[in-house]
C-alpha cells in the first residue's frame, strides 16, 4: 500500500501500477478498484485536509500531476470526448518492436511514440465540466477553509520558498485592483484569519492567485458574477457523469494536469496551419479558445472522487449531519440561546425593529426543500420595505449579511444595472458554451436586491427581461436559461432579500415594513454605530454555524398538530373570510416551519404554530398602517 505522500503527490503512479497489474488478468476491473482506493484513502480521518486545495493555493505552487481538491460549481457541461483509454507505444528511437501498453486514463497527453494502428487501442469516453469557484463565496469562507489547510500547503510547494518582499509587493498591487465593494468593510472582520491562521505568510499566499488571474483577464473565464476571481477548471469526469447537474456544488478530488502541451496545441491552431485537415475546421477560433484555454490559466482536473456539498460553510463538519450526532446534539441544544443573541444583534442592525429581525432570521434559514409540480415549497422571499436611504444603509446591511452567510451577492437594482446586466445565462453557439449570468448561483446563495437604488426611467427590452427573470426566480425558484432556439428551465434555490423604500415591484412571499425605533435625527449616528459594534469572531462563527445548521435540519408535522392547524384555519375564516386566504395559510405554514427550525425543533409544536400566527398577525397589522405608502398595490 503506497504511503500517503505517494498517493497525494503521484496518484498517477498508483493508477499505473493498478493498470499494469490488471494486464495479466483481464476483467480485473482495475478502474473501479483505482477509484475505490482513492475514495477509501480520503475517507480516512482528516486525510482530505492533507490534499492541497486549488481554491487556496496558487496554481503555480501546485505540483503537476498531483492530487488536488477544488470546491466549485458546475458552470457548464461540454460535450463528451473520446480519448485513448489504452494505447500502445513503440520506442521511436530504436524502431524495434518493443511494444508497451499504456493507460491513457486521467491524462491529457499521451507518451511518446504512439502506435495509432495498434489493435490494442481502446477508445473510452469522458465528460468535461467547466467549473468555477462557488460564485459569491464570501471572504470569510475562503479564509477559514484555507486556514484549515495550512499543513497541506507545505507538502506540494516544494519549489516554493516564500520571498517576503516580493509577495508583499504583489499584495499591495492586488489591493489596488480590488473593487471597493469587495473589500472587507472594517478591520474587525479580519479577525478570523488571525485567529485561525499562523501569520502573514499564509495570507499573502492566498491572495496571490487573484493578482495572477487578474492579469490574464483578457480571457473571459465566464464567472457568473462580475468581479469574481479565482481559478476556473476543466474537470474531466470518468464515471457516471449523469449524476451531476448544472449548478451543483462539489468538492472535486482529482489529478491536476497543467501540461504545457495543451496550450501549445492551442497556440498552433491559431497560427492557421492547413485548411484541409478535417479536424481543424470543426471548431471556430472562439470555440477553441473556450474549450481549450491555456492550461496555466484553466488547469485540467481529472476527477477521482467528487463530494457533493450540501453547504459550503467550512465551520460545519463536512460529513453528513446524521453521521455526526455529537456535533448535532451539541449545536441543537445551543440553538435557542444563539437565536436570542442573533435576534438582538439583528434588532440592533435593523434599527431596533425586533419583528423585522425575527423575519430576517426566518428568511436566512429558508430553503426550498421540495417541489410539488411547479410549486417550490419552503421558499421565503422577504421584502424589507421602508429602508432608510441615508448613509448607504442598504449597503451596510448587506455587509452584515455577507459576514454571516457562506455565499451571497449584492445586486443593485439601478436602472443602468437592470438594462445592462446579463442576469440569465445564455448559450453562445459560436463558442459553444453557456455564457453565465448573475442568476447562475449555487444553492442557498443569498441574493440581496437593493431596490432603493432604482430611480425613475425607462426599462428597455433587456431590462424588462431581467425584471421578469427576477420575478420568475422569486415566484417559482427557477431560471429560464436562454438557448436561443428554446428556453430551458433550471430549478434553483436562492434566498432573495429585497430591500426597498416602498413595496417592491417584484413579488415576494412576505413583506415587512421596517419601523426604526430611532428618531430620524439620530438615524445617521446610529447607523454608523452599527458597524462599530465589536463582534468577536467566535460570536460571528457561532452565528454562522447557527444559520447553516438550521437550514439542514429535518422537519415534520404530526397528525395532531395538522388537525389543530386545520381547525385554526377554519375558525379564522369563520370570523372573517377576508382575513385569511389560502395564500396566507401557505405563508403561515412556511413561517411555522422556519420558526420551529430556528429554535432547533424538528417538528411543529402547538406553541410554535401559535407563535407563528402571532408574528404574522403583528406583521399584517403593521402592513395595514403602511397600505397607502405607495401606489404599487393592486
Amino acid at each position: 500500500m503506497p504511503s500517503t505522500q505517494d498517493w497525494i503527490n503521484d496518484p498517477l503512479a498508483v493508477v499505473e501500477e493498478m493498470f499494469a497489474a490488471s494486464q495479466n488478468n483481464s476483467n480485473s476491473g482495475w478502474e473501479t478498484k483505482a477509484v475505490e482506493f482513492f475514495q477509501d484513502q480520503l475517507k480516512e480521518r482528516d486525510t482530505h485536509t492533507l490534499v492541497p486545495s486549488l481554491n487556496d493555493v496558487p496554481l503555480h505552487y501546485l505540483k503537476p500531476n498531483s492530487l488536488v481538491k477544488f470546491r466549485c460549481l458546475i458552470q457548464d457541461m461540454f460535450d463528451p470526448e473520446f480519448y485513448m483509454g489504452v494505447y500502445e507505444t513503440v520506442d521511436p528511437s530504436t524502431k524495434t518492436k518493443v511494444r508497451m501498453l499504456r493507460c491513457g486514463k486521467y491524462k491529457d497527453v499521451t507518451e511518446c511514440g504512439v502506435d495509432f494502428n495498434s489493435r490494442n487501442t481502446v477508445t473510452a469516453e469522458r465528460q468535461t465540466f467547466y467549473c468555477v469557484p462557488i460564485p459569491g463565496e464570501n471572504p470569510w469562507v475562503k479564509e477559514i477553509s484555507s486556514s484549515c489547510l495550512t499543513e497541506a500547503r507545505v507538502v506540494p510547494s516544494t519549489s516554493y520558498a516564500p520571498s517576503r518582499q516580493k509577495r508583499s509587493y504583489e499584495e499591495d498591487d492586488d489591493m489596488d485592483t480590488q473593487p471597493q465593494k469587495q473589500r472587507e468593510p472594517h478591520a474587525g472582520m479580519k479577525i478570523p484569519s488571525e485567529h485561525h491562521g499562523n501569520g502573514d505568510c499564509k495570507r499573502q499566499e492566498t491572495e496571490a492567485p487573484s493578482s495572477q488571474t487578474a492579469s490574464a483577464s483578457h480571457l473571459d473565464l465566464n464567472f457568473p458574477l462580475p468581479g469574481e476571481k479565482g481559478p476556473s477548471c476543466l474537470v474531466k469526469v470518468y464515471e457516471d457523469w449523469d449524476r451531476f447537474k448544472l449548478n451543483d456544488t462539489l468538492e472535486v478530488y482529482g489529478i491536476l494536469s497543467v501540461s504545457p502541451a495543451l496550450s501549445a496545441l492551442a497556440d498552433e491552431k491559431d497560427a492557421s496551419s492547413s485548411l484541409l485537415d478535417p479536424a481543424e475546421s470543426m471548431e471556430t477560433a472562439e470555440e477553441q479558445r473556450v474549450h481549450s484555454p491555456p492550461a496555466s490559466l484553466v488547469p485540467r482536473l481529472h476527477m477521482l472522487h467528487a463530494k457533493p456539498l450540501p453547504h459550503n460553510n467550512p465551520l460545519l463538519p463536512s460529513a453528513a449531519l446524521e453521521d455526526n450526532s455529537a456535533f448535532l446534539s451539541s449545536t441543537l441544544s445551543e440553538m435557542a440561546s444563539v437565536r436570542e443573541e442573533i435576534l438582538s444583534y439583528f434588532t440592533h442592525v435593523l434599527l431596533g425593529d425586533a419583528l423585522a429581525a425575527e423575519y430576517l432570521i426566518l428568511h436566512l434559514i429558508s430553503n426550498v426543500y421540495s417541489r410539488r409540480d411547479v410549486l417550490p415549497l419552503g421558499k421565503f422571499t422577504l421584502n424589507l420595505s421602508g429602508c432608510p436611504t441615508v448613509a448607504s444603509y442598504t449597503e451596510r446591511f448587506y455587509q452584515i449579511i455577507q459576514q454571516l452567510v457562506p455565499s451571497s451577492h449584492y445586486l443593485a437594482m439601478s436602472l443602468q444595472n437592470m438594462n445592462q446586466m446579463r442576469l440569465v445565462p445564455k448559450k453562445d453557439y459560436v463558442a459553444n458554451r453557456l455564457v453565465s449570468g448573475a442568476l447562475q448561483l449555487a444553492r442557498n446563495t443569498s441574493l440581496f436586491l437593493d431596490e432603493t437604488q432604482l430611480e425613475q426611467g425607462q426599462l428597455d427590452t433587456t431590462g424588462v427581461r431581467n425584471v421578469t427573470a427576477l420575478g420568475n426566480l422569486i415566484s417559482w425558484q427557477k431560471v429560464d436559461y436562454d438557448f436561443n432556439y428554446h428556453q430551458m428551465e433550471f430549478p434553483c434555490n436562492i434566498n432573495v432579500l429585497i430591500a426597498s423604500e416602498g413595496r417592491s415591484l417584484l413579488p415576494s412571499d412576505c413583506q415587512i415594513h421596517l419601523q426604526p425605533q430611532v428618531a430620524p435625527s439620530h438615524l445617521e449616528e446610529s447607523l454608523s454605530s452599527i458597524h462599530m459594534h465589536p463582534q468577536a469572531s467566535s460570536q460571528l462563527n457561532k452565528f454562522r454555524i447557527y444559520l447553516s445548521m438550521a437550514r439542514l435540519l429535518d422537519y415534520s408535522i404530526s397528525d395532531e398538530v395538522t388537525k389543530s392547524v386545520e381547525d385554526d384555519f377554519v375558525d379564522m375564516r369563520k370570523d372573517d373570510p377576508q382575513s385569511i386566504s389560502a395564500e396566507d395559510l401557505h405563508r403561515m405554514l412556511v413561517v411555522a416551519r422556519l420558526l420551529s427550525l430556528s429554535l432547533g425543533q424538528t417538528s411543529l409544536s402547538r406553541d410554535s404554530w401559535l407563535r407563528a400566527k402571532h408574528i404574522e398577525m403583528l406583521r399584517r397589522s403593521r402592513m395595514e398602517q403602511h397600505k397607502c405608502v405607495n401606489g404599487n398595490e393592486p
Partner: protein
Amino acid sequence: MSSPTSTPGGRKRGRNTNPPTPSSEDPTSPPSQRRRGQDSSTGDLMPMPTSPATDMLSPAAPQDTSLFSSPRPSVQPNEVDMSSPLMYGTPSSRVEGTPRSGVRGTPARQRPDLGSVRKAPQVDLHSDTDGAVASEPNAGQRLVIWGTDVNVGTCKEKFQRFLQRFTDPNSTEDENAGLDLNEPLYMQKLEEISVVGDPVLNVNCRHVQSFDAELYRQLICYPQEVIPTFDMAVNELFFERFPDSILEYQIQVRPYNALKTRNMRSLNPEDIDQLITISGMVIRTSQLIPEMQEGFFQCQVCAYSTRVEVDRGRIAEPAVCRNCNNTHSLALVHNRSVFSDKQMIKVQESPEDMPAGQTPHTTVVYAHNDLVDKVQPGDRVNITVVSAEYFLKLVLGTHPNSLSTVCVGIYRAVPMRVNPRQNNVKSVYKTHIDAIHFRKTDEKRLHGLDEEAEQKLFTEDRVQTLKELAAKPDVYERLSSALAPSIYEHEDIKKGILLQLFGGTRKDFSQTGRGNFRAEVNILLCGDPGTSKSQLLQYVYNLVPRGQYTSGKGSSAVGLTAYVMKDPETRQLVLQTGALVLSDNGICCIDEFDKMSDNTRSVLHEVMEQQTLSIAKAGIICQLNARTAVLAAANPVESQWNPKKTTIENIQLPHTLLSRFDLIFLMLDPQDEAYDRRLAHHLVSLYYQSEEQMEEEFLDMAVLKDYIAYARTYISPRLSEEASQALIEAYVDMRKIGSGRGMVSAYPRQLESLIRLAEAHAKVRFSEKVESIDVEEAKRLHREALKQSATDPRTGFVDISILTTGMSATARKRKEEVAQALKKLIQAKGKTPAMKYQQLLDDLRGQSETAITKELFDEALRALADEDYLTVTGKTVRLLA
C-alpha cells in the same frame, strides 16, 4: 479489445487509399500490391508521407497506380491470384461477369460521406462450410473484406434480391405515396429514378431488417464497406433494367431509419464507424466548404500530369515527376482538381431528450455533396415553417424522429493532430458524424403522421395503458383531478382547462370560403388576486410542450406577434416570431391580461378567432399561423371582485375580446366552512406529505402528457346525428331563455364553443364520435362558466349580452327608459332653449321613483344628444331645433 470497430487507430490503416468511389471501373491495378504498399508507408500520422517509394514491402508495385483515380477507361482486370492463401480484392474489383454496359457510361460520384472508402483486402476464411457461399460464382472460397465479415458477392446478391422482392403492403410512408404497395417497392423507386433522373435511392433500414436480418446487421456494423456494395448492386440492377436511361452520375444508396437510433447523449465509442440515426435540432451550419477530393498536378518541365487522391484531408504532393524524373517540378492546377461540397452542421440535442439539470450536447455533422444546405439552423426567415413545425411535433409526443432533423450517419473519431515538434499527442479524439441522409420531420407533416411514427411515439404498452385509462367511466374526472394537484378544488375550471388541452377537431372550410374553423378553446380566468391563477397557468405551461408563458405587464405587441430585425451576420432582414406564433398548436398562457396595453390586446383579436397573424412590416408582408389556444388570467380592476358589477365592469376588458373566449371562469373564494377545512387539509398535507405519498394519489404527469398527446394526434371526433340534434336543441334553448325577457342569451359563437367543447370531451374519451353525453357535459360546463361570468348582477339572470355588447340587456333597457323620461321632462318644461344641468338632474330625480345616478343621467343626455335633440355644453343643456 479486439473488435476493430472500436479501434479507430486500427481502422486508419484502411482509409489511406484510392478512389473513394464505389465505382466499378477501376479495377486496374492489382489491389493486392496497392494495399500492402500503403499499409506500411503510412504507419503513423506523419503529415506528409514523403513518397510511396519508401515502401519496402511491395517492391513490385508500380508506384503510381494508387494515385490514379476512378474515371478512367476501364482496363481489363488483372487476374486475381487465386492461389495465394490471402486473396485481396476490393468491392469494385469483384464485379466480373455482370452486365455493365450502362454502368460504364455513367460517371460514378465520390462518396465523401463514407470517408475515403477503404479498399480493404478480402480475407479468405477457408470456410467452405458456409452454404451461402456456394451460390457465388467463384465458389469454394469465402472472401470477406478485411476486418469485417462482409462477403461482397453475397452481400450484393442479397441486396439485389431485397430490391427485387421486397414489398411493404402496409406502408403508409409519404415517400411511397402513389406507389403500388403490392409490387416490389424499390423496383418502383428505381423506375422513378429512371424517369426523374435523381440518382438517389433512399432505403429504409427497417425494410432491410425485415427482409434479411443478417444483411441489416452488416449494414449497421460495416457501413463503409456495405454501402458501396449496395451502390454497386443497385447500379447493376438499374442499368440492367433501364439500359437506356441516362443519369448524371451513378445511383447512390442512402439508408435511413437505422434501428440503432441514438440519443446524442448515449453515443459512445462503440458506435464509431457504425451506421446510426441520431436526431436533434440544427443550431448552426457553416458556409459551403469546397473540399479537394483529387489534386491535379502538372509537371512544369515536361507537362506530364498526374492526379493525387486526398488522404485524410491531405494531398501528398508528388516530389518526383515520373516522366522526366525532375524533382519538385510538379505544380497543382486548381481548376482541374476535383472538389466536393462539404458543410459543417452543428446539431444539438433536443430539449425533451435531456435529463433535467443538464445542458444539451452538440455534435458536429458533415454534410457532403447534395446534402449540403438541406438543413438550416432554425431557418430564420421561414421560422414558422421549420421551427414552428418542429415544435409542433413535440406536442404530439416525444418521438425520436420528432426533431427538425434526423440524420443517419457514420460516427467517426479522428485523433487530434500530432504536433510535429512534439512526440506527445493530445489523447483526445475529435468526433463527427458524416451525414448520409437527412430527414426533416416537418416535411413529413405534409401528409400527417405515418404509421411508423405512431409506433415510435408510444410503445404498445403505453398505448395499452392509455386505452385502458380511456375505457374507465370516470376518466374525465380522473384526468381533471390530475391536473395541477397542488391547486385545490376549482373542479370546473380544471375541467375547462382539460378540454382546452385536448381541443376540438380541426375543420377546413376553406373551399366554401370560410377558411379554417377555430378548433382551439380559449379560456379566461378572472378573480381575486391570490387564488392561484398564476399557478394554474404555470402548470399548464409546464405541461404542454409548446406552451408559452407571458405576462401582460411585460409583453408588448411585438413580443406577442413578430418583429423584423436585421441579422447581425448577414445584414438581412429577418422575422423573429413572438409568443403567439411560437405557441402555434400549443397554448399561450397570458398572465395579468388586464394589465396589457390596448395596443397589445388588439393583436389578439385576429389570433383568437382567425388563428392567424398578419404582419406588414419593413417590406415583409405575411400571414403567420397562430393556431394557439389562449389561457389568460385577469385581475379585477378594483383588486377585489365586486359582485355587484358585471364581468366587463370588473375587469374592464373590451367585450369584443371577451366574446372570443369560450369559457370565462371566475375564481372566487367560496367562503364556506367545509370547503375551508378541506382546503386547509390539502395545504397542510402539501407541506408534510412526502413526495411518494402524493404521487400515489394522483395520476403521473407523464401519463397525462402522453394521454393528451395521443388524443390530440389520433382522435378526431365527428359529430354524430344524435349529438348534432342535441346541440341544436341546446342552442335553441339558450336563445329561448333570453328571448322571453327581451334579451339574447346566445350567439352563433356560443354554438361554436359548444361544438368545440363537445368534441374535446369526446377526445377525452378517445371516442371518434361526439355523442350526446359529450354535448351534455359541454352544455353543463358552458352554463357553469356563463353562470359565473355572465350573470347580470341586477337581475341574477344569465345574460350573454354582457359579454357580447358589454352591457346587460336590463341596463340597456333602463338607459332607454331614463332617456325617454328625460325627454318628457324637457318637453313638459315647454319652450326653454337652455337649462341648467344640475337643475335638470334634480328635477329628474324628483320625478323618477328609482334612483338616478349621475352616470345614468349623463348617459341619457348622451342618448338624446345622439338623437340631435339637444347638446350639452359645460353646465348648460341646450335644445336643438
